[in-house]
């Protein structure tokens, strides 16, 4: 016998210092703030919480993007496309959504698309679209 059990719980996760700064800049200024690693000076975007190379913490804010280069992408039925992009000025890569790019090519130039309604987190970027095409 199979019984279905449903669970509904509203979770909310603290973003932490660097990610809060990142969220506030997106929300208020449509700017993308990476962070300089306190250990090795790499520019992290997403900003943290810790550097993948040296484990250092996200430090001073560094503006990156909104231009970016496509490193990898994947498309899922009914779920859209996702991309790994390197924002201009960043050393790490950001995983996000790929929007309105009919023929993605690794190495192509992309640009962040900001959401019209912004709440202060990563979703304030709707995704990355082809460079030069503003909605």
């Amino acid at each position: 016998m199979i019984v279905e059990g449903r669970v509904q719980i509203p979770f909310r996760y603290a973003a932490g210092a660097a990610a809060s700064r990142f969220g506030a800049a997106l929300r208020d200024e449509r700017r993308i703030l990476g962070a300089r690693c306190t250990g090795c000076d790499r520019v992290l975007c997403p900003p943290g919480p810790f550097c993948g190379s040296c484990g250092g913490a996200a430090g001073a804010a560094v503006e990156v993007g909104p231009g970016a280069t496509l490193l990898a992408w994947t498309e899922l039925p009914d779920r859209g496309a996702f991309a790994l992009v390197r924002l201009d000025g960043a050393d790490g890569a950001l995983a996000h959504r790929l929007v309105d790019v009919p023929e993605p090519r690794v190495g192509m130039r992309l640009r962040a698309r900001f959401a019209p309604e912004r709440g202060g987190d990563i979703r304030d970027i709707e995704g990355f679209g082809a460079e030069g095409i503003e909605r």
Partner: protein
Amino acid sequence: MRAGDRPAVAIAGVGQAGPVAADSRSIPEMVLAAVEEALADAAIGFDGVEAVVTASVDLFDGLTASNVAITEVVGAVMRPETRIAGDGLCAAIHGACELRAGACETVLAVAHGKASMAPHWALTEWAMDPVFLQPLGIDFLVCAGLQACALAQGDGGATERWAELAARRAAAGDAAIAPPRSAAEILASPVLASPLRRGMAAPLGDGACAVVLRAAAGGPGEAPVRIAGAGWDLEPHSPGERDLARWHGLERACARAGLDRTDPGLELAEPSCLFAHEEELFRAAAGIGEEAPLSPGGGLFAGTAPHVAGLSRLIACARAIRDGAARRALAHGAWGPAGQAHAVAVLEAW
């Protein structure tokens, strides 16, 4: 973990339930079947078990402290039990640590998982960074697609090769969960996460594994298989902070297990590859050429269950050594997005 002055760890018994697409049994019933088989194989009863290490993950079981559901069927009432939330191979490796530490003489290592309970990939979203990744809907499947894309760059024949590999593996297995398909059928199967097609992923179902480990001072008379080395590793979480085209974590885990990258004595490898492309990452990281038999029984493509995979690979290696098919074998477990975490155990005939 390498051989030293501490007790050797023998694999005294193994048992398995499933994998099947959907086991109508409850989790404890399924686990008990695997445990009873392992105890019988080791020719001991529950009284012969001194300590238990289990592997399971609450969210995947839909149950808080989900090892509470199996306490009595693993014989852990009034005994020490530790639950590692991760791949089942970790339960065996940690059990081996307890034996080498001299904490006890016999350990039962158990893992279970039921993919039939919930859409598996949707659950994995809750294992992703909830600040930067989960809100975008990025789960383990998305990460596998990104990794496959990174691997396929400048490699025109990649998808055909993966389809052939998946077809070969699936044909070697007993097709408990999904029917085997030809490479052409796999290439024509629906997209899972491009460039991966559905047939390039191992079929997920329900199953449990149990292994009896024993501190063995003597030698081959006590048990025919011993754990000669073990290692594990965690890579950075964010796929953007990793080289997706290499399993560096597995390289480090193998080194810790005392495995030379071109180990000539390795006669079998049983990797936990949920996707066809991962087998290429595995070979490169573990330094395994085409000559060493790899997943002769189909590996995970014969069907697998969440968090059970690594322990099932250890059982496959142990059985091959007992059957005389290999004298030295590598069992592998993996968890996390795009192979973020790895564990390996080197098994040897005694």
